[in-house]
């Protein structure tokens, strides 16, 4: 990070459509400061996940630009809506895998992995295969794998979907902890209460356009 200036994620007239006139998002402009937590809400098909995927670099915008600070490139973690973990590997192996993918040094991996499992109450299931986990446990583990990167930018697509209340509480607590650490986040949720608890700003999308913006 450069001294004296805050890193910003900047979208300028960004548009991504699936076919001419098809569903998608934009054109929209958005600026996200470092340490800010942006909540995205809206109906199904409003373009929230598409926007998140554009921010994650999974989709290339058709028009406009997405500027991400270079120092965030290696420290961006994306948590998709569906569970993206190897079911036949253990929780520990999945953590190791994502830690390596994010380029974490070997010595730090066990320490960080153990801390995350402890935070998310998964330590006693570390050696079990993920396929045998409940939905809530898989959600928590998925978040843990993303946090192996010590991310500067964390992109979360409905991280609490399908999780039990206890799991939701653990996930939100960890997100609040990360916010306190200065981690920049973009969070999608259908639960207004969750967004209000974690986010500093909430944007409502409809048909790919920003229809409401609220600072908390």
């Amino acid at each position: 990070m450069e001294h004296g200036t805050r890193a910003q994620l900047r979208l300028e007239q960004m548009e991504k459509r699936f076919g001419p006139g098809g569903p998608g998002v934009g054109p929209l402009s958005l600026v996200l400061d470092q340490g800010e937590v942006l909540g995205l809400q809206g109906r199904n098909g409003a373009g929230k996940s598409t926007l998140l995927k554009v921010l994650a670099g999974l989709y290339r915008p058709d028009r406009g630009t997405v500027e991400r600070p270079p120092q965030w490139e290696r420290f961006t973690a994306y948590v998709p809506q569906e569970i993206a973990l190897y079911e036949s590997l253990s929780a520990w192996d999945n953590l190791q895998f994502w830690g390596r993918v994010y380029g974490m040094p070997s010595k730090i991996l066990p320490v960080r992995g153990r801390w995350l499992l402890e935070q998310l109450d998964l330590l006693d299931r570390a050696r079990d295969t993920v396929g045998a986990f409940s939905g809530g446990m898989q959600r928590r583990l998925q978040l843990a794998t993303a946090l192996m990167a010590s991310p500067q930018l964390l992109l979360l697509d409905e991280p609490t979907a399908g999780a039990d209340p206890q799991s939701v509480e653990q996930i939100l607590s960890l997100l609040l902890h990360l916010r306190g650490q200065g981690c920049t986040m973009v969070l999608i949720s259908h639960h207004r209460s969750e967004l209000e608890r974690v986010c500093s700003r909430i944007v409502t999308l409809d048909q790919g356009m920003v229809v409401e913006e609220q600072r908390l």
Partner: protein
Amino acid sequence: MKRFCALLAKDLRLFFRRSGVVSMALSLVLLGALALGGGDLSRGAYVEPFPIAVRDEDQTLMSASLMGQMKQVELFSEIIDGGSATDASLMARGAAAVVTIPKDFFYDLYTMEPVNVELALNEDMPLESSLIRAVFTSVMDIIAANESVHLAVYDFCYGPLDQQEQAQLWEEFSNRLLRDALGRQLVFDTELMANDTADTVQSALRLCALSMLCLFFPMASVQAVPAERDTGLLARYRAAGGSMLPFLLAKLVTGLLLTLPTLAVVLALFCREILLRSLLTVLLVYVGAWGVLLVLAVTARDGAAAQRRGNVFLLLNLLVGGAVYPLSLLPDWLHGAARLTLPYQLAVGLETGLSPAMLWPLALGVGGMLWSWRQLEHSLAVDRRSRARLEMPLPPGRWAGPTALKSRAMSGGVLGVLALCAVALLCGAVSRQATSNSTPGALTVAVVQEDQSPQATDLLERLEQVEGLALHPVERNKTASVLRWGDAEGVLTIGEGYGTALADGEPPPLSYESAAAAASNQAAREIVAGQVTAQRARLRGLDDTEWLLERPLTAEEETELLAAMDRRYEELPPLYAVTAGAGAAAPWSATAPPLGGTLLLILFTLLTWGAWMARPDAVRVEQRMASVHGGRRLSYGTDLLSLWLTGAVVGGLSLCALGVEPADWLSVGAYVLAVGAVVRAVTRLAGVGGRVDLLAPFLALITSLLGGCFCPLDQFSPWLERLSWLTPQGLALQGCWPVLLAVTVVFLWLGRPKTH
């Protein structure tokens, strides 16, 4: 019944949703190709007359007469005058072989000077080459036998010969030699030899195709069992009052229904004469395979583990059961295990019909179903979700760590890796043993002696003295067992009336039935033919002597004359030399090539393990990795590295056990690269779900069969051989590693990660 039909419909839908249609279509395409190839093989079995070339450097009346008489041989459609043309140009004109008669051959033959007729065989015409080689060898043996008899007879009648007597002997000997050699009666005629060759290849093909059917479709039918158990479908079915018996039987029937269309084609193609016996045998073996695979699926952690176990079971059965290499070529220590395999039961059933031994697969099927029934009932009452995993250290690095983890996930863990290594070593050892046994060397021939005449006994005594040939007396009812287990490479039957037929100059009642290795088959036939001809020449030599002396011979004189004939025969120098295009001996064998098993194992492993990459969770992880800096490249690269690493381990272990040339290592290395790239592309192009899981073993087996891993395709037809060049196995067997590298590049491009 309604419930059973619903279960059946469910299982059939499950199969067809998982690329079942493609599997069935592939099997029918394969059989169509083999049927056409088989048609070519049948045509080849009744060989059309073919041209040969003769280069006459002798240019004497004798050699001209030889060429004239060769034109009378039915097997040769044309005798091309070789002149000064090269062997290659003559072969390009369609000659199956080029015979070179050297200058002064006949005179040197008579004066017993070392002289060779050269026979160059056309490698592009393997069946014709093998036939002409057999004929040529037999003819030259006849010449040698006649020459020794004539020299002994004249020596006996006239003592040391003067110039005039020598000239007379040469003329008489030459005339008779030509008449006898070219108007000869081969003791085994060429049509019979060709038929045996075709039968050998067709039997191997039939066993291979039926084994694949009996193992593949049962595996497909039980693959969903772990998922049905773990997702609660089975519990819901039981809670609704459903019984376990129809649940399991529906899977048995599903597999049978899926097998039937392809089975009907196979039986129609290869088993027309033993249709009912074949059908019953296949059904029994199918039930056995289904029972074992059901047990493997029920005890598996998940569908992928069931698939992996089934794959190992399938591979072991094919390797050890005689579907890839004939049982007779397997090492002795594997014979016990081979008896337990399903392809063995299939082979025995097809050969001997239904017997009490066939109860073994039936018992496997029923036992497997009852055990699975009990286990599934038990599994409904226990929590299966908590399973501790063995932790393994990971290599450091952003590439090495994920590669190791992916390899572990693909293999299913340490046990999976160990099982694969064991199969790889076994594959190499079996291939080594099988291919070293198939080279002609020390031949063991079982003999059924039905004729007790002095001539029959004399033939056996003569054969016993032949270097590299061991005789093994056997009862007629033991011959099938002797052949199957390789106690002998063939069975020679000396039929009743052999002595009389020989004395009367009629075709002797001799038959020779071989095991699968056709090379030894021909060698044995040649040896026997040479000895029978020698016997005939000796008998005629005794008659000639009596005619020349105008009196009967005493017993002492007969003994003395026969000893002189033997002495002369042993003193003869070799009369001919055989070469192939490049000077090497012409290859000829119906046995799978040495690398066949290794290539099959590599593709089978990479396809079945690589199918893991198409599973939904793996695809989601790959998509998620694209969000990481350099993640697409990392995901793609580690996929490839884990496949190549697996292929290298499997191939390396197998080749170490096999012991091959450096050039083969190069071919197999390029093959691993190409197959890794192909598998990565296929897993991406085939989409997600269980499609690749289901297709993988079938694709591997089919391409291996078409690629020539199970039997040499040049025995079938030129176009089938050319078709094999479209498969990675075919290219590797031909040593075309540059093409394999090009294939690698193409498939790396096709399977490249795409951006949205």
